[in-house]
């Protein structure tokens, strides 16, 4: 990373696919960047996108949302609901002036340990190129207020 | 063989740097040797070359670079077309030949082959294109095989397949040639 700063990234993942996938990354001892903290949910369908705002408001530089591939959802359709709501919510975040490159959406199955490592490293790299997140404090607040 | 005396930059590393794949990727199934049309003439079958690379031993490396095999490779790509591990043997052979020339440990039987390549490149260097007469003349001078294919020439001439004079006079820019060639890294 040319950029010196260590971004804070939080990952909202589902318990059945991505969390298990991340476990597999561990059991296969694949190394990746330390910047990501995983918050575990039963399903991406549970993820209330206000959490993303909260994360940014609290000073996160990036967010990863990851769950089961389409059709693989442990609860049949949670990930579809998540995707559908995201389409709407994303526009609002854009309106609020948050750089959408800070949010990474992905599907990682329980078998894709290597993919999880890649996603984390990519995201960290991309966020590093973006500099620390200020949008929320600078733009979002005023717009909403 | 003692696994003790390793060399600092092994051939294995050189190869890996250039083809972007560890030589350990080869699991010695022998499919390359099985299909190689020139294997019968070789001193080491292709898969043995891979094995020798894997030992990362000075002694093995001398065996490889001094081998006839690397010069007999026809670059017919039968091996890598069928290799279950996608090992690009023809490229590895290219690399080994270059290294063998660089370290000046070329197999004596390969002299003719090199002589041929040299005269070939010499010809195109001077005429821009291949010119059989020039090529063969150069080759014969280098190898002293004056009588080889002596019957072929007049026949080719009769059939109009041999141009007594080169068709084209355009010296190739020297920038094209090996000194320059060395600067070019092999694509991964």
């Amino acid at each position, binding site marked *: 990373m040319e950029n010196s700063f260590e971004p804070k990234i939080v990952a909202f993942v589902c318990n059945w696919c991505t969390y298990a996938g991340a476990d597999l990354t561990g059991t296969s001892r694949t190394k990746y960047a330390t910047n990501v903290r995983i918050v575990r949910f039963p399903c991406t369908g549970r993820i209330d996108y206000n959490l993303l705002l909260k994360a940014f408001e609290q000073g996160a530089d990036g967010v990863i949302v990851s769950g089961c591939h389409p059709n693989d959802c442990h609860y049949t359709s949670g990930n579809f609901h998540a995707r559908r709501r995201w389409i709407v919510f994303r526009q609002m975040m854009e309106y609020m002036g948050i750089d959408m490159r800070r949010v990474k959406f992905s599907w990682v199955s329980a078998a894709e340990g290597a993919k999880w490592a890649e996603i984390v490293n990519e995201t960290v790299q991309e966020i590093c190129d973006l500099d620390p997140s200020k949008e929320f404090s600078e733009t979002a607040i005023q717009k909403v207020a | 063989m003692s696994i003790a005396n390793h060399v600092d930059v092994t051939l294995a590393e050189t190869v890996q740097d250039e083809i972007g794949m560890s030589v350990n990727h080869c699991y010695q199934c022998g499919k390359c040797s099985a299909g190689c049309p020139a294997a019968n003439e070789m001193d080491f079958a292709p898969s043995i070359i891979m094995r020798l690379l894997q030992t990362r031993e000075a002694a093995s490396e001398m065996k490889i670079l001094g081998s006839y095999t690397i010069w007999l490779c026809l670059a017919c790509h039968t091996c890598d077309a069928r290799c279950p591990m996608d090992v690009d043997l023809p490229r590895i052979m290219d690399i080994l030949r270059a290294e063998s020339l660089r370290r000046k440990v070329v197999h004596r039987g390969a002299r003719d082959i090199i002589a041929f390549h040299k005269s070939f*490149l010499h010809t195109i260097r001077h005429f821009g294109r291949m010119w059989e007469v020039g090529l063969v003349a150069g080759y014969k001078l280098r190898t002293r095989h004056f009588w080889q294919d002596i019957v072929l020439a007049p026949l080719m001439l009769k059939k109009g*397949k041999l141009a007594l004079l080169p068709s084209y006079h355009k010296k190739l820019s020297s920038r094209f040639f090996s000194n320059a060639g060395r600067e*070019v890294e092999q694509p991964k």
Partner: protein
Amino acid sequence: MKIGLYPGCSFEGSAREYAESLRAIAPPLGMELEEVEGWSCCGASSAHAIDHGLSLALPASILAQAERQKMDEMVVPCAACFNRLASAKSDLAANARVRQQVADMIGMSYAGTTIVRNILEVLDRVLTPEVSKTFPNTFPHKVVCYYGCLLVRPKSVTREGRIEDPVQMDELMNRIGAKPLDWGMKTECCGASLSVTRTDVVGRLSGNILEDAAGRGAEAIIVACPMCHSNLDMRRKDIERTTGKKFSIPILYVTQAIGLALGLDHKQLGMQRHFVPVDLKGKSKIQIKPQTGVKAAV
């Protein structure tokens, strides 16, 4: 159809009949061939054998010239040249830094926009089943199609889907009324790159090819590669010396076979230049000794 042409050195020497037959069949097939100006040798097997830089520089300079002449496509009849150009092209496409270095070496800009086509791809396009119906003659012979290495391997370079059993040439033969036979040597190597230096190896490898072809009662072997042709035709005596067998089977360029179907005469197609006389009446006659079981179990 207007298309670029890179003849390659052999077109002026050992493969003149290939050149002649191609130029002869081009007009009736509606091909307009535009030659790459001031072309040089592609480096063939020697360059990449001992000078990697050169093996990229020469093809690059040719392709760069083709670009200057605004060629979207360029047909390369010589399989060896085709393979060199195509693989250099993909090597250069794979690595920007190398591309730059090579561009500096040849002192020309290189973008890699010209598509390199082998003869079969092009013939397949112009010699459609419809077109073939308009031919005055047919080529009613049992033949085997010999592709060799350079037209099919490596897959990544040649875009050939069926590397173990290619069929484009067989289809072309079908279209002109020939009967392509299934045989075992379609893509075996003839030993080209050791032609001069290890004639004995060539003798053995090419011998196998002639043997299998003749053994299956083929009247001719159809090729699309000057190297293969000169090995199987010009080197016939050497082959017979190493194998101790006599072979009468003629070797025809795919373009010559098509030429015959187009009703062109032997002279127009450069048949007289062959070392092995082209007489397609008599079946090739040789007896093949029965093979032994396990060969190399020594």
